[in-house]
């Protein structure tokens, strides 16, 4: 039986190994970076939820105090942070620790505190882009 000489000389297996190890390392690092990124996103989501419920709890506390004030015959703006917005309308804002604000509007007509608006918004000021980047028409 005739034996053919191997065409793979010294170094071929090393080159193959380098390619395989580099590929494995690349996939491993990509998987690790993706996992870390997912974990960071989950942590941010948890922090955001915690900030919302903290602001929500403080807003509910203010509503309770406004109700107490109404029951005691005191104007709601005696509660710290509550501002009059018109006849029988009051509003207050609760700033959360992640840069949002819970803006609440109240209607106290009839001696009963009724929530008319409960909006959780970004407290950062919106900055529009300059008009020069938009097509203004011919």
């Amino acid at each position: 039986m005739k034996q053919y000489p191997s065409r793979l000389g010294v170094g071929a297996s090393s080159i193959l190994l380098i390619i395989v190890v580099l590929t494995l390392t690349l996939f491993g690092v990509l998987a690790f970076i993706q996992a870390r990124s997912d974990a960071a996103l989950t942590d941010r989501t948890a922090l955001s939820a915690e900030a919302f419920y903290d602001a929500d709890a403080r807003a509910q506390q203010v509503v309770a105090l406004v109700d107490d004030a109404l029951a005691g015959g005191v104007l709601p703006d005696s509660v710290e942070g509550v501002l009059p917005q018109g006849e029988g309308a009051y509003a207050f804002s609760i700033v959360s620790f992640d840069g949002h604000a819970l803006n609440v509007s109240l209607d106290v007509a009839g001696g009963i505190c009724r929530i008319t608006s409960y909006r959780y918004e970004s407290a950062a000021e919106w900055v529009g882009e300059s008009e020069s980047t938009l097509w203004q028409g011919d």
Partner: protein
Amino acid sequence: MNEQILRPPKKHGVFSPVLIELTIVILFFALSTSIVVRLIASASAISNESGFHARALLAMETVAEQIKADPAASGAADECGVRSFSVPVADDLTVNCVVTGAEKHAQGVYYTIELSVPDGDGGSYTLQAAKYVPGGEAMP
């Protein structure tokens, strides 16, 4: 006799270069693979943990909103005014809830809601919420 003289002597104890290279390659491959497998296992553990955290957070938010819709739950509290119960969300996920009618106001009750999900490693994920119910009756 002449054939034995012409035959080249056998070499003993000399390794082929290819064999030496293959030995080094296999050792290096084993070493690098052990490191990469550790990296992938670590990534898998982090991914599983963050996935469970996300599910726990979603479950706690859902349960919190359900409790806020009716914090008194028709007076199902104990003598101390505390309502404690568990909500199974999945086989590996249970939300433990403690609802307390903490403050009685002139025209309502301020409830505090404490939620927790055990993470299986002795720790837990927690979320705290509150709800003021105007005109609501205080827990006993």
